[in-house]
């Protein structure tokens, strides 16, 4: 049943390619169907699906354990929400369907080469999305960087294949790779995935793509980056057993500071949010690189809050940027959008009454428990900078005197969805466990690679 998640969107995509006019309804149906499938899959969580009967060491298998289930769930929900906005999707529904398939595939696959293939598709569709609203130059930049990253990823897979003899992740993690080889493999993987996971020196493309048009940030900043960060966890924790994590830790810290400072400098709202998402990704990566169960679960908890908040922020921001020339005091005309924007930005900063508070405080708690004094200092410093530009934007959008008199009809659907998600954020503050339980399961699944291996090998014996 799991493979339908990948196959169905592809079929719908081809149908849409044939019948142009049906493409949007097809997109909606495919996302709805996908969400239903994911919910149905809830019961049969630790299961492995072997493609075409080929046993794992030779064939491709899809692994659905707690971690990948959570990632798929988030990705599909995001795509479903994006699909609701007919006018932002416009004629990109086929691309979106392909991207949905790619994301599901990338997350579920247990095979390294297969994940490379899905990564390539992701980058390709990402480039097409990024080129919306004539954002060609940034799209081109993303294409160059994405393909380079893809090639690095491929090299790493080839090296692992030479060392382990099979492309299967379980096998890779099972057979100890020699000392010299592991270094090359991890570095190439780090760089390959780093581009997609917005690691510091590699995330040049982010501001161009996210800041470029109104559709790509909604999808890329949330679902795709979630998938990339999940894959980071999967690779470095399960497959390589936490080998090159201290490199990741240092790069992540630099990403946080660089992202925040660049955002501080920005004048354009979308670009600021792009850099803020770089910084949040940095925080998640730093937390993952701690490789303790509590920290990894908090990492994904923080990532979930960030995804929700970013989704709302970009929803509101894209609407504003493409409807008003001058943004002063715009929220006076759209009160609901404004409140959603403020709530999610407050949650990003970590004010109490909002989800961010829970994740940041717990992270600080954990770090102090493991007496690591550097990361909390960087985190708090980054929060101060983040607070500066987010408060500056909130004050500018709420309280400045309105200069742009153009009257734009309030976006009812967009407002309702963003206010629901904002209230969800407050809900998470009140009952953090609704997110914390799944993320602890994710952490457990990622960390003990033995259960991962047993699932895969067991399934290779028992077949389907």
């Amino acid at each position, binding site marked *: 049943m799991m493979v339908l998640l990948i196959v169905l969107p592809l079929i719908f995509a081809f149908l849409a390619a044939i019948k142009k006019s049906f493409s949007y309804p097809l997109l909606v149906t495919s996302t709805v169907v996908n969400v239903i499938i994911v919910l149905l899959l809830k019961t049969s969580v630790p299961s492995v699906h072997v493609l075409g009967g080929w046993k794992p060491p030779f064939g491709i298998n899809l692994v659905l354990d707690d971690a990948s289930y959570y990632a798929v769930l988030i990705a599909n929900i995001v795509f479903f929400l994006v699909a609701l906005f007919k006018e932002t999707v416009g004629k990109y529904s086929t691309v979106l369907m392909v991207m949905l398939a790619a994301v599901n595939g990338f997350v579920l696959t247990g095979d390294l080469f297969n994940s490379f293939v899905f990564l390539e598709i992701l980058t390709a569709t990402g480039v097409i999305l990024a080129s919306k609203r004539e954002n060609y130059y940034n799209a081109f930049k993303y294409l160059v960087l994405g393909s380079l990253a893809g090639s690095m990823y491929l090299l790493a897979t080839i090296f692992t294949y030479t060392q382990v003899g099979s492309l299967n992740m379980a096998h890779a993690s099972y057979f100890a790779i020699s000392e010299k080889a592991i270094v090359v493999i991890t570095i190439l993987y780090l*760089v390959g995935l780093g581009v997609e996971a917005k690691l510091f*020196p590699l995330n040049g493309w982010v501001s161009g793509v996210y800041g470029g048009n109104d559709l790509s940030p909604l999808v890329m900043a949330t679902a795709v980056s979630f998938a990339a960060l999940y894959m980071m966890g999967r690779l470095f924790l399960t497959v390589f057993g936490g080998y090159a994590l201290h490199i990741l830790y240092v790069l992540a810290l630099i990403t946080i500071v660089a992202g925040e400072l660049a955002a501080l400098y920005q004048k354009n709202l979308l670009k600021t949010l792009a850099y803020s998402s770089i910084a949040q990704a940095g925080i998640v990566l730093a937390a993952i690189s701690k490789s303790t169960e509590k920290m990894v679960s908090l990492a994904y908890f923080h990532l979930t809050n960030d995804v929700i908040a970013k989704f709302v922020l970009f929803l509101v921001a894209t609407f504003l940027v493409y409807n008003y020339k001058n943004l002063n005091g715009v929220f006076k005309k759209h009160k609901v959008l404004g409140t959603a924007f403020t709530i999610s930005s407050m949650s990003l900063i970590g*004010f109490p009454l909002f989800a961010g508070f829970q994740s940041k405080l717990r992270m600080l708690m954990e770090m102090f428990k493991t007496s690591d004094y550097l990361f*909390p200092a960087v985190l708090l410093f980054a929060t101060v900078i983040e607070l500066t530009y987010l408060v500056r934007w909130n004050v500018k959008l709420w309280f400045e005197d309105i200069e742009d008199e153009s009257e734009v009809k309030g976006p009812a659907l967009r407002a309702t969805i963003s206010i629901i998600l904002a209230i969800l954020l407050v809900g998470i503050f009140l009952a953090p466990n609704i997110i914390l339980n799944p993320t602890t399961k994710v952490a457990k699944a990622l960390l003990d690679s033995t259960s991962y291996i047993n699932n895969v090998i067991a399934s290779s014996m028992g077949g389907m």
Partner: protein
Amino acid sequence: MFTLLVALLIFSVVNYFISKASWRVGSIINALIGSYLIFQVFTIPKGTEVTIGKFLGETLALQWTNAGFYFSFVSLLVIVAVMFFAIKWLDSQKHPAAFNMFILMVTAGSLGVFMAKDLITLYIFWEIAVLSSMLIIPMGKKESRKAAVVYAVMSAVGTYMFLYGAFMIYSRYGTFSMPEIAKNLANDPSTSFKVAVVLLIAAAGIAKSGIFPLHTWLRIAHGNAPDAFSAVLSGQLVKLGSYVLMISVAVFPSLKIFANLKLYSGVPAPNYFLIALGAASIIIGTLMAIKQDDMKMLIAYSSVANGGYILVGIGTMDPLGFEGGVLHVFNHALAAAVIFMAFASVVYRTHTKKISELGGLIHKMPITYIAYLFAIISLAGIPPMSGFISKWMIYQALVRKGMFITAAIAFFGSIGSFLYVFRPLAGVFLGQLPRKYKDVKEVPPIMWIPMLVLVAISFVMGVWPFPILQPIENMRADFGIAPSFKIADAQNWLVRGFSGSWNPVIVFNLFITGFIVAYILYTLFPKPKKVDLLKPHKEEGAPINIYTSGEFIYTPELYHYNTKFYAGFERMYEKHPSWEKLLYMLAKFFHDVGEWIHGWFFRPSPSAYTFWLAMTILIIFWVRW
């Protein structure tokens, strides 16, 4: 207690929609809630504890101590007065509904802070207070947007240092609740950890109560916030900072903790550092206040100076000094609130904040004038009003401890306060009434009643200080600072200090008898002829009838002295280094670093990206931890 706070928070959102309908009803409800809260504060029995819930394995609890009662009572006094004041004042504001909502949130936040038993609850309610006040400030005029950002950043810096300190404590002792922390800190061997932690906790107090290094936001925030709210800001929110300072010095018994660091006449080193900061903020506050032309910024700087007084008082940890510092919280809260409300009514009527444009408003707004006069008597620390008692105690402590430089700075601050409180008095209220304010009317009663009530309270506490000294005494007893003699001796009306006592009632009687004797003399002699200062306004073409060295002057503004009031003194420190510019330069530095990063890493051509990609691979390979 916790239900009270949650109810307040929920009701603040409800009140938003009520005020959307009609803001007047909303603000009346606000005022009623406030007064109910004051009543509630008195009824809660001391020592009750309520656990809120579990957070990361630690229990979050509220406790009702003497300190909590005293600080909540003082802040509620100020907030309720401002709420009543706002009932009529809000019609001159653009966002009355949001104002009503956020002021309730500020109340909830501050009460939560005062009730918090452990650092995390304190942090949560502290952030609520900061968040809601941060959203009220930008409702003011143009400059207030920037003020909100500066305010947010400065309190964020302080708060996150506080959080860092809290977690450092947690990592070592595994608990957040303050009583346990106090015990553990008392017998912890490593002094460097203790000093670091106490100063980090105090950082939030320094940021919030506007002590020296982080005091620049006060000028912008108070100067430009909506007028009534700057009364709450300086009267009450600054007291959150003093509360945290008190925690970092008294709740964590600094005398015991730093027993081995006794630097000078019984004052441990970190306290001495805090006192030095307090003294610096007294100097800066006073000097800058004297030269301000905008009356609200002037009183903002006076809040910096008085925050310094409170810190100096508490920092000495001397029974008298401590009591003086805490009493000064009460005095400054009331005085600053009344002064800002007076300025709010002046701005409400004349729509200008500059002293140089105003003058002679006593003829048109006598009641506001009286409220302002008594408030500045208390702020300047002159006997009949309660301001004097707290300053008297601080002086006694400083002199007894022989800290002469701090004492000299404290004296300079108190005399400087005569100067800067007198400047708006002479520039705005006394002197000649400009022609364009000819038909200014007095503010409606709902606005001057709160002022007079607060002034009356401060006056009564000045004459008979024992009701307010009682809670402070048992707060001091809680912290175990026992003096060798009874400070507030109610039986024979004495307020005792180390080197002498004085009897507030006798002093007041003396002043009254002196006043009566003067009045008798006044009536004995021939009746005066009335010189009407408003003659040029009443009949056209009548010159001013006071001594104008023979010249016929028809425009009163020409004959009113209010710009550069202390020119002689201001000239002495014209080219002074501005700390504010320094902090702006620091912010600019981060901005430029962001620009550099953006320029180098994020903007250039794809070829640069590949270069950076290759560089990362090379570096990692080369370094290979």
